[in-house]
């Protein structure tokens, strides 16, 4: 084990430029810590999209409501995995709960996570699905009946009063949920932003940039999933809904882009001690992932595509299939862009020496716990979980709803109750 570490570190030696402190050769937070903020970002973003329906009454995106909640849950369940696996001693992680150090941002992870999972997501999903669960449990047989019965926590009440309470509860949870989603991801940003030793991270803007990039990634991912899943289940993509969601995504990308631009201008204009090494890093080590993938392919190109679509949609009523394809490309590009953003923050922050005199390099492993394969597993795992969740808690009737602003009704055989309204 140690020999492998020595070997891979020796391979980095010839690639070091300038002077770095001798302890800085090893990049300590690798691929797993790139995956972690990406995943929590999707959680926060998907939840914010769901809140659009509930709090801000955006009826058009109703078909995405349950899908975004389930997406948020699938990703949230995976979120602790990369953190746990990168520890030197995962078996001691419980110490973070038993003897948390109040001044440490990282120590709060468990509490923020537990709060978000228990008090927000699970609760909201339960209330959304409660009446459906009861109906399913009544109409089905076999193991599914029991799964749904247990999931409904054996509640049976479908009276007017109970439904009214569901609505109220949902509203309250969402209202608590929005700041919680902000907290969840803003907090992840703070873990980096509060490190005064590292000028690449240390910025008050970082938590806010994280938040908006979270919204971007979550919304884009839900749109992507919707566009893939709907045809697979034999449904028809509701373009009104996608148009609206893409609209929202468009503004989120613009805000995100402007924030990062402000950060960039600020740094260059202030031009402090570290500016030389940071620009050297951006031009040499991060050129591909930052300038090309994050900014050009992940932001400017999709913004361009979406604006063109918007303009031509109005003027020439752009063909629906073409629109679908353009949207699809955009959200896909945005996903890669956001992943590159996480990469640039996490890895970039460790490539330059704190002596500001040199750069080290990141060597990607293929196998092993810090390797590419494991990271891919972690990225695919939420999709697997989502597939299972979609089986147990099917959101189809809502996803196939018209979403044209009128009240959605459920399918008659499945209970025929109203979808929870905003």
């Amino acid at each position, binding site marked *: 084990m140690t020999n492998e570490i020595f070997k891979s570190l020796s391979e980095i030696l010839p690639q070091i430029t300038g002077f770095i*402190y001798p302890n800085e050769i090893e990049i300590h937070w690798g691929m797993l810590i790139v995956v972690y903020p990406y995943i929590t970002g999707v959680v926060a973003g998907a939840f914010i999209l769901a809140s659009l329906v509930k709090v801000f009454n955006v009826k058009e995106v109703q078909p995405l409501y349950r899908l975004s909640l389930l997406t948020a849950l699938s990703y949230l369940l995976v979120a602790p995995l990369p953190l746990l696996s990168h520890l030197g001693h*995962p078996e001691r992680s419980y110490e973070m709960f038993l003897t948390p150090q109040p001044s440490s941002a990282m120590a709060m992870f468990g509490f923020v996570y537990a709060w978000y999972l228990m008090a927000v997501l699970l609760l909201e999903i339960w209330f959304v699905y409660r009446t459906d669960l009861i109906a399913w449990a009544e109409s089905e047989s076999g193991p599914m009946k029991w799964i749904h019965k247990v999931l409904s926590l054996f509640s049976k009440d479908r009276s007017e009063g109970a439904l009214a309470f569901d609505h109220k509860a949902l509203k309250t949870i969402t209202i608590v949920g*929005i700041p919680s989603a902000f907290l969840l991801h803003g907090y992840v940003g703070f873990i980096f932003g509060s*490190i005064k030793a590292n000028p690449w991270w240390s910025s008050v803007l970082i938590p806010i940039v994280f938040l908006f990039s979270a919204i971007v990634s979550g919304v884009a991912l839900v749109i992507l999933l919707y566009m893939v899943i709907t045809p697979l289940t034999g449904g028809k993509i509701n373009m009104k809904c996608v148009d609206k969601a893409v609209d929202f995504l468009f503004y989120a990308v613009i805000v995100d882009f402007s924030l990062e631009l402000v950060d960039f201008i600020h740094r260059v204009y202030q031009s402090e001690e570290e500016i030389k090494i940071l620009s050297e890093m951006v031009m040499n080590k991060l050129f591909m992932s930052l300038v090309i993938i994050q900014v050009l392919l992940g932001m400017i190109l999709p913004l361009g595509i979406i604006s063109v679509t918007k303009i031509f949609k109005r003027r020439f009523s752009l063909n629906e299939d073409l629109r679908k394809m353009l949207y699809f490309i955009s959200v896909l590009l945005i996903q890669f862009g956001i992943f590159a953003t996480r990469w640039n923050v996490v890895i970039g922050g460790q490539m330059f020496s*704190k002596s500001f005199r040199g750069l080290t390099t990141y060597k990607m492993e293929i196998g092993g716990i810090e390797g590419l394969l494991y990271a891919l597993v972690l990225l695919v795992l939420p999709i697997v979980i989502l597939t299972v969740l979609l089986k147990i808690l099917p959101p189809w009737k809502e996803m196939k709803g018209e979403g044209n602003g009128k009240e959605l009704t459920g399918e008659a055989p499945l209970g025929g109750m109203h979808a929870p309204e905003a």
Partner: protein
Amino acid sequence: MDGRRKFLRNALAFLVSGSALGGVLKILPSSALAKEASRTGKWYGFGVSVDKCIGCTRCVEACKTENDVPKEPFYFRTWVERYIIRKDGEVIVKAVETKPEGVPESASDREVLRSFFVPKLCNQCADPPCVQVCPVGATFQTKDGVVLVNEKTCIGCRYCIQACPYGARYLHPETRTADKCTFCYHRVSQGLLPACVEVCPTQARIFGDLNSGASVMARFRRMNKIHVLKPALNTEPKVYYAGLDGEVR
């Protein structure tokens, strides 16, 4: 309308509680680790005379032996940097390897303006960011001002390594926990000197109690113009440098 008002109210409450939390986070470490409090009792510090160091790296070797630091050149509790500043303003820095042939030739080069060695080690900051960020309290500060890592409770998250502005920490490849200079706490607490101080042939390194009025350490601080590394970060380093060049970071 009602919902919106409720939302605003909640948002406000969230912001207020959020900033209160932030305030607490800020205050906590400085009050818990108040530097002034330890003005009674021992409060250890370290002195480095830059001009006395000849770059022999006996300190580095002694440290590695004394503290079981892996021999590989990726792990150092202390190391020596060599600075060569050329007439055209170019600054060349190298970490001096523990073998003599690692020392670059430069004395004969006419373009060299000045050249010197700078020993580095954990600054045992009075207000240590590494302690502030450790999620489990495995990194802590002793009453006499030494920052230590408890390798029984360290979870190996490496947050402290990120938070140290001086590159003083590494993850020990065998214990998988954070590690760094301890001022040789095991020796110091028995009245001995740290190993590096003991072996330094030119007395470029000195160690002592900052609170004592009559000691090598006190004399060092009286007789020299003192500087610390990266003072702007407000970590209050307790490794004091005499004759430090402005190029050193």
